[in-house]
């Protein structure tokens, strides 16, 4: 398979953390490739390095060693501005604890990535379009009437759908989800997984991290991370 078919590739990723005087090796040479339109689930026990790998794939963290390629380009060679643009336009993150800003209402949380990518003048030029897109996303996720609510006024499932809306706001090429159902009951979690399945059917590339193999079954491909390596 040629390199161009993959949207995201990780080659020999190593990452370790200091815990006191001890060095904890989390990733020990991870090799991974994700094709465009694929729905990949990374499973592994708690502390196996799944979230760390996801953060490295989304350029939220840097590997100690190894290369992450996005559409063939090495993220390590990106400048700070390019990395910010990459996180703003190319990837969308969904976190286990939703990570919405309490100071913004639901609609504002959704169009936050659009605002973050523009200057004040640029935002004034595109704000109507952005708000329309955010409203449309909220409508698709059944949250149209919650647009002016604050995140803490919503249920867990609603908050996670808002977080997915935010992740999709700038139509990213890849969606990175870190235990997206980990904080939800099974019915609500299933609802979120259905959203992911529908998005994937529509062509969205998704990389999801989960410790629960049953949830991972929803993905097209399952990768298991054990002791810092893909097995």
């Amino acid at each position, binding site marked *: 398979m040629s390199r161009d078919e993959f949207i995201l590739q990780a080659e020999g990723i190593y990452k370790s953390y200091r815990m006191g005087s001890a060095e904890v090796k989390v990733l020990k040479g991870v090799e991974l490739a994700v094709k465009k339109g694929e729905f990949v689930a990374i499973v592994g026990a708690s502390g196996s390095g799944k979230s760390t790998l996801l953060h490295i794939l*989304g350029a*939220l963290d840097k590997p100690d060693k190894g290369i992450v390629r996005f559409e063939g380009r090495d993220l390590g060679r990106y400048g*700070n501005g390019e990395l*910010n643009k990459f*996180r703003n336009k190319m990837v969308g993150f969904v976190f286990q604890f939703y*990570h919405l800003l309490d*100071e913004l209402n639901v609609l504002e949380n959704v169009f936050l990535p659009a605002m973050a990518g523009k200057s004040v003048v640029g935002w004034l030029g595109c704000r109507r379009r952005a708000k329309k897109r955010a409203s449309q996303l909220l409508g698709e996720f059944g949250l149209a009437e919650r647009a002016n609510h604050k995140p803490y006024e919503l249920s867990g499932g609603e908050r996670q759908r808002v977080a997915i809306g*935010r992740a999709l706001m700038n139509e990213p090429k890849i969606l990175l989800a870190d235990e997206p159902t980990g904080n939800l009951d099974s019915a609500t979690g299933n609802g979120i997984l259905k959203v992911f399945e529908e998005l994937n059917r529509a062509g969205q590339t998704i990389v999801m991290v989960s410790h629960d193999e049953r949830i991972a079954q929803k993905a097209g491909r399952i990768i298991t991370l054990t002791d810092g390596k893909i097995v």
Partner: protein
Amino acid sequence: MYKIILSFRYLLKRRISYLAFLAVALCVFIVVVVMTVMTGLVKDFKEKNHSFVGDCVVGTDSLVGFAYYEDFMKILEQSDFVEGVSAVIKSYALVSPRGTEQNVGLEIMGIEPVRHSQVTGFGGTLYYRKGDASRAFKPLYDPNLPGCVVGIDRVLARDAKGEYSYEASPMEIALSVSCFPLTAKGALAKAGTSIVNTMTFYYSDSSRSGLARVDSSLIYLPFEYAQLLCGMNGAEKRASVICIKFKPNVRLEDGCKKVASLWRIFVREKSSERRAELLENVTVQSWKDYRRAFIAAMEKEQAMIIVMFAFVGITTVFIIFVVFYMIISHKSKDIGILKSVGVSNVNLIELFSGFAFLVGLSGSVVGVLGGWLFLLKMNQIEDWLFEHFQFQLWDRTIYAIGDIPNAVDLKVLGCIIVSAVAACLIGAVIPSWQAARLNPAETLQVSQL
């Protein structure tokens, strides 16, 4: 745009932001009130000193005085930048109410009242002859008697509100004034048993300059009499100083330079005359330099207050630093979220700096308005406190202060607001920089929540 929205929301929705806001508002309030009062006191004191001597003073500290003052006054009067000149005799005398054994050493000033009023604020300091200086030395009870104007504190005592209870007409008091007349060489002009000159003057009015030292130890006499008492009425008449008032469009420094230049030429021309050596001791000074000994003390106090408030400013910076450090510690999750959607480090610094700017601006505006309101009502508050609790900021029976100065200087207010905003920005620099350096992956970890 999110920076503006989030800055406002952080300010309005976070209780800890209110602490920062209150810290700034309180500091600004204190600085506005104290600086206004202190600046007002210094300004008032300077104005009174200016009013007391005019714009420029040509004179000597020597009790002998200097000759040819009339010639120089003519030169000054003919120049295009001088509005008025007034010669003054300055010396010391023993003054005793006639018929008593009591006496007190006072400073005497011999003046021509009309001329002196044209140059200084003398006419406005009088009570019975206010605005009519020509009759300052004519007692109401007998205008033919030689009058004297006495510093108000020598005649009346201030009440608790700083006011004087004037009689309807001046009391009939005869004052015996004794001086040692001096020759041009500084020797006693008289020998033998009668070495002093003594004359009797009648209390005609009191002068209230607002300068405690002047009002408590000065007595004005008619120029010719003072000259006679001091022995300065010889062949070469002498005076102690010439007070000068410049025309309104003349800058003080320029006027003084011109007077100094004229004086140098004058001294050269008179160098061969008798008593020309007395001219060497004469200096030309602006009113600020002439009264420097008195003004400097007040300015020193003002400088000390400014230094103290610089420390208040440093404390504000520290408070803002602590508050921002706490705010940013609480906001580490937000920082991770913002970075995950592509916000740059610079934008994060701008976001928290914008927040600091808002805290500084809103806090200082509220502090300034509060201070302004307090200043407007401060004298009423002090009156109320005095009526109910006998509390006064300054004991008016001792200090020559009327109302507490409360005229707000807009420039000072502007400086205070700018300083407060700058203090907030400085206080927020390190926490903002630290926020920008946070690793988003670490801040978004479950264990960090």
